[in-house]
């Protein structure tokens, strides 16, 4: 009998459509499930059948996807990626802690919980630095702290924001790097694609969502070593591991568990969605 795969989404992007088409090509019984239209009884396993043998969790909302994964795992449905991986990757602080614990090279990172402590900290570590939200993506709310004046302004703004997660001040060194970073796509224990993401004119961030241009990147031994260790440190699976080329070598600064790969697919010869679907098939067979 054909393996049944479900692709869970709350906004259908290019990636979910590509995964669906790849699964169809592999003759899997495939369902795209819009999770905004379903409900669950937490005591029941009745609905488990609709998700098939395995689910690929592709929700654009981190918290929605995370909670959905918890429900599915309780129903004994394997999910790519598992709950503990999604939880770690969706939170920059948890990712940093996991990377540090595994001795993966990562930018120097500091955390405080109040505006006053944040001011004191940045005076001590110096400028420039970068303020990032612990939860968030696409470069949203990532702010360069160029001097004390700008830092104090950003901290004040944060203090007036109601989201409690924004009261966690996650501050990183500003890494001296070329105007690009490296996005690698990891599937299991292999880097299947690596691309440079070059900032567009007038932008210092390197997110494709902000207009970064992708181009092929060679997979060096140093890159491979850092990336695969980072993937292992967060629990493994299908991941987007992002690195910076610092003067001290490769630094891993982010790991994404619902990786967007449209940009990487455009600059890579590898069929990324097919590799992900093959990984799901192997997970079921194991």
């Amino acid at each position, binding site marked *: 009998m054909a393996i049944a795969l479900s692709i869970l*989404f*709350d*906004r*259908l992007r290019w990636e979910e*459509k590509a995964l*669906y088409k790849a699964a169809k090509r592999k003759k899997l019984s495939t369902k*795209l499930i*819009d999770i*905004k239209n379903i409900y669950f009884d937490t005591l029941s396993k009745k609905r488990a059948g609709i998700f098939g043998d395995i689910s690929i969790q592709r929700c*654009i*909302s*981190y*918290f*929605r996807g995370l909670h959905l994964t918890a429900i599915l795992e309780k129903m004994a449905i394997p999910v790519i990626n598992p709950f503990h991986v999604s939880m770690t990757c*969706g939170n920059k602080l948890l990712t940093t802690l996991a990377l540090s614990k595994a001795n993966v090279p990562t930018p120097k990172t500091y955390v405080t919980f109040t505006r006053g402590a944040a001011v004191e900290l940045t005076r001590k570590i110096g400028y420039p630095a970068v303020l990032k*939200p612990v*939860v*968030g*993506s*696409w470069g*949203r709310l990532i702010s360069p702290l160029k001097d004390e004046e700008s830092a104090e302004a950003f901290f004040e703004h944060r203090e007036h924001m109601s*989201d409690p997660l924004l009261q966690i001040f996650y501050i990183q060194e500003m890494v001296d790097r070329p105007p690009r970073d490296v996005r690698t796509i990891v599937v299991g224990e292999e880097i299947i694609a690596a691309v440079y993401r070059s900032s567009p004119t007038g932008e210092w961030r390197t997110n494709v969502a902000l207009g970064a241009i992708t181009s092929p990147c060679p997979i060096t031994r140093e890159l491979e070593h850092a990336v695969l260790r980072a993937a292992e440190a967060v629990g493994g699976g299908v991941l*987007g591991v992002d690195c910076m080329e610092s003067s001290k070598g490769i630094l891993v600064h982010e790991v*994404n*568990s*619902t*990786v*967007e790969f449209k940009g990487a697919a455009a600059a890579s010869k590898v069929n990324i969605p097919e590799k992900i679907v093959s990984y799901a098939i192997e997970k079921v067979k194991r």
Partner: protein
Amino acid sequence: MKLKCPECDGNLATPKDLMEGEIVSCPDCGLELEASFNGKGEVELKKAEIEGEDWGE
């Protein structure tokens, strides 16, 4: 397939291979619309969700 934007009544053409949940933008007002299929297989468009703080990858 030709449809009307529920916000501004502008004319909107959707691709032939439109899928459930896919987002289309109204060329007149720019609103993002989410496609769904009703019981008769007809396309219905509703306002798509606005980007959340936790959206991303």
